[in-house]
Each structure stands twice: as structure tokens, then as C-alpha cells.
């Protein structure tokens, strides 16, 4: 590949990066709140809710994301005869899959908060909702930053899996270009793209950690 070609390819990669980033942000948008719901379900005192959530977490974390992507893409057609838009199916699979991992990270954070915090809030008269948003959640967020950072980085890399159901993104573009041009340069360029994205994620998390270091 000549320099001009590499530059042109990089331009295409920037386009494809938009799809990658779309998958990344939409997964977070749906997955983070859904994960919190699943976490609360997993910690629920009501047995059926806890049981169903456990099954959900087991399936999502116990089967390949690749398989889940295929399932969400083809199951609606094979079972109900309706087709789901490929991108939508992909986002759905990513969201419910990542929510399961987020749920366990949240749970780890919640269970590490001393019981006395909730008790103090209760005695002071805070409602359960106030206690959650004012006392528990801020402390949970601080504590889960390191595992969350890793999970976000994994997500950046996992976005490449969505190409299995035919969504054009960076990985697909790079491998196609590699085959056509008979060179590994596209793979190296793609690697740099992923690396830069994750460097930004890493920077984001270290900054937030620093911001929250004013208390222990």
C-alpha cells in the first residue's frame, strides 16, 4: 500500500469508526441503567425476582456474545416471522449482554459499602430513594471505577463482534481491505484506532478517579 492509499483507507476507517463508537455509546446508554436494574433484582429480597435475575445473568455471561448476536438477529424471524433491523438487533444483544457484567460490578460496589451508611441514613429519616441516590450510589461509583474502566475497554474491542451479523464497522473494513490489497497494513491501522479509543477511555477513568479522590 502506498502512502496515499493508506491515507485514503484511514479516511474510510474514520467513517467506520462512527459505527464502532455508535455501538459503544448506545450499549452504555442502555446497558448501564439496565445493569443497575439487574443488580437490584439480583440483590432483591423477593425470591422470584432474584431467581429470574440470576438466570438472566448466567445466560448472558455464560454464552458467547457472538452467539447472542446471531440469536437476536435471527430469532425474531425464525420464531415470529418478523425481521429486526440488523443494527437494532446488534445493539439489543450488546446492551443485554453488557448489562449483565455491569450488574455484577455494581453489586460488588454495593456490597462493599458498610451497612452503617444505610443505617445512619435511615435513622436520619432519609427515604430509601434518597438513601440510594445521595448516600449509596455516589460511593458505589467511586469504588467501581477500576473494574468499570476495564469493562469499557473490553466493550471498545468487542464492538468488532457486531460484524458477524453484517454491520460494517472498523474490523470488517480492515479485514476486507487486507484481503483485497494483500497487505496487513489495514490491520495495523485498525489496531491503532482501537488503541487510541481505549487510551481515551483510560484517560477518562483516571481523570474521574482523581476527581473523586477527595474522600476515602
Amino acid at each position, binding site marked *: 500500500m502506498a502512502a496515499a492509499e493508506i491515507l485514503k483507507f484511514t479516511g474510510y476507517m474514520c467513517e467506520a469508526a462512527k459505527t464502532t463508537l455508535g455501538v459503544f455509546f448506545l450499549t452504555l446508554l442502555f446497558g448501564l441503567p439496565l445493569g443497575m436494574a439487574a443488580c437490584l433484582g439480583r440483590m432483591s429480597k423477593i425470591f422470584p425476582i432474584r431467581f429470574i435475575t440470576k438466570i438472566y445473568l448466567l445466560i448472558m455471561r455464560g454464552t458467547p456474545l457472538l452467539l447472542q448476536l446471531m440469536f437476536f438477529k435471527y430469532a425474531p424471524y425464525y420464531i415470529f416471522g418478523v425481521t429486526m433491523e440488523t443494527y437494532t438487533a446488534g445493539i439489543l444483544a450488546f446492551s443485554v449482554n453488557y448489562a449483565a457484567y455491569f450488574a455484577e460490578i455494581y453489586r460488588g460496589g454495593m456490597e462493599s459499602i*458498610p451497612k*452503617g*451508611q444505610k*443505617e*445512619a*441514613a*435511615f*435513622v*436520619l*429519616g*432519609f427515604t430509601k430513594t*434518597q438513601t440510594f441516590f*445521595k*448516600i449509596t450510589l*455516589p*460511593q458505589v461509583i*467511586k469504588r467501581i471505577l477500576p473494574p468499570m474502566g476495564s469493562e469499557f475497554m473490553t466493550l471498545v474491542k468487542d464492538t468488532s463482534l457486531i460484524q458477524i451479523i453484517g454491520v460494517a464497522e472498523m474490523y470488517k473494513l480492515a479485514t476486507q481491505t487486507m484481503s483485497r490489497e494483500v497487505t496487513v497494513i489495514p490491520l495495523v491501522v485498525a489496531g491503532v484506532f482501537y488503541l487510541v479509543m481505549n487510551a481515551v477511555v483510560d484517560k477518562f477513568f483516571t481523570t474521574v478517579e482523581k476527581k473523586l479522590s*477527595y*474522600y*476515602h
Partner: protein
Amino acid sequence: MSVLTVSNLQKSFGKTKVLKDISLAVEDGEIVSIIGSSGSGKSTLLRCITKLETPDAGEIQAEGKMGLVFQNFNLFPHYTVLRNITEAPVHVMKIPKETAEMEAVELLMRLGLADKARAYPHQLSGGQSQRVSIARALALKPNILLFDEPTSALDPELTGEVLKVIKSLADMNMTMVIVTHEMGFAKEISDRIVFMDKGVIAEEGTPEEVFASDNVRVKEFLGKF
């Protein structure tokens, strides 16, 4: 007039009966110390009164608000000292923020912590933390203040500064129930001492009466000090 009345309270954890038929009344302005060995049910009684535990049987009647001071302070680490104190008045009692902050600063001054308003809990000593947690409880203007071993997590030096604060509250006629292992302090400050043993009130009376008691368990317990 009783500020707090506990009648025939019972509580078990699994098969262990922690409280067996406890009855207790606390009058307005009275200071009651609850003493007894670990596992006698003192803390559980306090936790039932403050609804942190649900009793199996019996009744608890309380006039107005209650404040609780914990052994381990349980300050909110992500809030400044000032906000630890104002958060409940502002968000539970809906007092305007400015008023709450003024009152909190006044409280801090009274407790000798005026310069700590902007500090975070991790920057405080144990004694300072406990004084802040007392201020936090007082900010809700409780009718009765309950202490669950307020000095057990502190070294002797820091214990002194917390006891001084509790004494100053006594001088202001605050109604208090204090679970404590500080026998000298209990003797000095209390109007009444309640001795708990194996889930029952084994002895009860003025400090003089309890310290002179013929009850074998009381003698055994006090002999240890």
C-alpha cells in the same frame, strides 16, 4: 412525662433470644445509662428503639424525633462535615439550606469544631468524627438522643473529649439513653442506670443503688472494672 416507653419488648435472632421481655420508660430530661456485658442485648435494645431492628413482640412509643449516635460514627465520607450535618435537615425536614447551615455552624462551634466545617470525615480524628456525628444527630432537634457505645472505638484520650460533649448536653437537659462501658462516666452523669444481663433488665436504679447492688451478676460485672 415519658419521652420513650418500651413495653414487653422481645427479639430473637434465629434461636437466640436476645431480648426477653424488656420494659423501660425514659422521662423528659432524664439520662439513662445502659450497662452490661457484651451480648446482654444493650445494642439490640437501642436498635429496636430506633427501628433498625423489628421487634418480635412488645411496643415502643416515642414522643417526637429520636437521634442515634453510632459506635463507628457512620459519617458520610463523600460529604463535608457541614453537609453531613445539614443534609437531613434540608432534605428530610425541608429546612431552607441557609438556615440549616447557620444552625450547623452554631452546633460545630458549641462542639469545638468550627474550623472543621469544610473538612471531609477522613481528615478527622476519631474524637472529632464522633463529635460531628453527635452534631449530625442534634441538627434534627431530637426529643431524645440515643448513644450506642459512643466511645468504644476511641482511645482514652479521645474518649475524654466525647464524654465532655455528652456532659455538656446533659447540662442542657437533653434526654439521653447511653449504652456504655465507661462505668465512671455512667455513674457520674446518669440519673438512672439500667443493668442488662442475658436479655433482661437485671437491676435498675440510681447510680448509687446499682453500684451498691447485692445482685450477683451486677457485682460480678462491676467487679471487673
